[in-house]
């Protein structure tokens, strides 16, 4: 039911490509939100805060990247990091709190799995930010065409409206 489809993995890849962006988001959050706020928002802000806070940490991003290739136990997740298991567990708790991962059925291993939906939500948020500026710049395109026409009044072929 919670299987990660290839589309979700590609969302994840997109997000990791812009991994630094999340770090910036946390420091730049005022400016970004400010611009976002100009559009009616449909996403829950506390949820987004949790997602971005979780993604701002490189270890947690690495954990998500590992989980994108399949479920893994805490031990397996801790392996590549020079970190104690409790330290890793702390990171997992943050990821869980943001809804980015969940625990599997196997009571013995308690494998963690990636939940793709919050990533899609975060991605949508970024898209809104992009769309806000794209809309601005498209209006600017139109205005510049107008200014160009006014700037070259001598050109005979250019006729006013």
């Amino acid at each position, binding site marked *: 039911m919670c299987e990660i489809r290839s589309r979700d993995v590609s969302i994840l890849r997109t997000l990791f490509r812009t991994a630094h962006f999340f770090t910036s988001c*946390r420091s730049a959050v005022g*400016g970004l939100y400010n611009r976002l706020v100009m559009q009616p928002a449909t996403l829950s802000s506390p949820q987004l805060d949790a997602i971005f806070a979780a993604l*701002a940490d490189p270890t947690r991003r690495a954990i998500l990247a590992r989980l994108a290739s399949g479920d893994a136990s805490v031990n397996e997740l801790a392996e590549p990091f020079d970190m104690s298991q409790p330290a890793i567990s702390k990171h997992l708790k943050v990821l869980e709190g943001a809804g980015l991962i969940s625990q599997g059925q196997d009571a013995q291993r308690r494998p963690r799995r990636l939940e793709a939906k919050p990533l899609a939500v975060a991605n949508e948020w970024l898209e809104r930010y992009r769309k806000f500026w794209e809309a601005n710049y498209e209006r600017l395109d139109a*205005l510049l065409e107008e200014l160009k026409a006014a700037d070259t009044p001598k050109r005979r072929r250019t006729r006013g409206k």
Partner: protein
Amino acid sequence: MNPTKIASTLEISTPSDREIRMTRVFNAPCNLVFDAYTKPELLTRWMGVMPGWSWAVCEIDLRVGGTFRYVWHGPDGVEMGMRGSYLEIIPPYRIVSTESFDQKWYEGECVETVTLEESDGRTTLTMLLRYDNQAVRDGVLQSPASTGMEAGFSNLAALLATLER
């Protein structure tokens, strides 16, 4: 060459942990883009004019040390304002300014650098936002709750909630 509009895409990147950079090409000489960015009667025609939002104040004193002041009115009486001062102005190629919002969404200041480069009648606009308060950034990254940002988030959450209605 086909004179129809060449699709120009907005590129967003992060040169460092404290910066966001946006790049966009415009099919116009840079003096016009500069005007559109710095003259209130032009700026108010494109910046932030989203459905439900309108300009209330747009004041620009375009000189080094001069200030700007923008206020928008939104749905349900929501008001949003920002201000800043100019650090560097090289018409029509470069504007460096500080910017901060009336609503304290983050601590510290943001420095915005807008550069315009013209080539063959087209202008590449680069907007670099630098959030240069190292202490705040580190605080945010290590412990969001320990900074003033949390309060800012609450304000924002309230604002977003009103917008959702």
